């Protein structure tokens, strides 16, 4: 499902986004977060371990959740 920018259409934290074809989870985290510390990623409801971010390519229609700590509880 290529977007008008020639990239991949995915959903990140509930928002539709286009990323460059060939992007990995690591690329997405770098673009999204100032620091990878205290961050975790789920892709299509599966945790992607940090060690696999740079080797996990994003695929069309992926749903990605990038989470961190928030005050609570």
């Amino acid at each position, binding site marked *: 499902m290529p977007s008008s920018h020639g990239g991949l259409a995915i959903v990140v*934290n*509930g928002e539709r986004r286009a990323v460059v074809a060939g992007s990995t989870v690591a690329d997405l985290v770098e673009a*999204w*977060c*100032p*620091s990878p*510390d*205290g*961050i*975790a*990623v*789920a892709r299509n*409801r599966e*945790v992607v*371990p*940090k060690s696999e971010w740079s080797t996990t390519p994003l695929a069309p229609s992926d749903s990605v*959740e*990038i*989470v*961190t*700590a*928030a*005050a*609570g*509880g």
Partner: protein
Amino acid sequence: MSATRPPFVVAGRELESRLVLGTGGLPSLEVLDAVVEASGSRLATVAVRRVDPSARGGLLDVLAARNVDVLPNTAGCFTASEAVLTAKLAREAFNTDWVKLEVIGDEDTLLPDALELLDAAEQLCDQGFVVLPYTNDDPVLARRLEQAGCAAVMPLGSPIGSGLGVRNPHNIALMAERCSVPVVLDAGIGTASDAALAMELGCAGVMVASAITRAREPARMAGAFRAAVEAGYQARLAGRIPRRYLARASSPAEGRPDL
């Protein structure tokens, strides 16, 4: 303090403070820092939420600087599968296999869904997590959670954020007496005396969030809770007198002058 102090141990980790802090509801990280310092707590809960690229970070830094361990929660989860995935994300994000397991059944009361809770607890214990479930004040469910392998049980005193205190002291006392894992009262506490009561009932610790964070002066209230948890704990160790129907004089009857 010279009195013998049995350590507060959860899953083999000794915690210096029996007060577990919730971090939600504070106006700023500066106030959080003051609260943490005043509370003396060494364990604080955080929620797992989407990264806000525009948000100022630093929550984890504040806790780390005060030597406070992070206890991720699964707040907001309504099913076992959501809670299990949230715990896995927390483990990945915060490098801890501890989780305060919350599986809520109802948005109005925020009461636990016992069936989903037990299901999630079993899954997470099987996967090596140190599970501290937020549970109903039900001694039988507590036993089931313990049998599932939970490291502690965290019964509610009353609904989250209600400030109604410990509504069923008898059940809390039963749980404290019958559980072999620590019982940490969680939720519903309104003020310091509620925490003292929980400790007097035999709880190993108390978790407090709203009663501190939403107090008019959060840091002062954190100090009050620190003192109350210690007072209740010491009173429990010291052994309260039995309740009596009628008075029992404490001054001697003998030697009373004939006036």
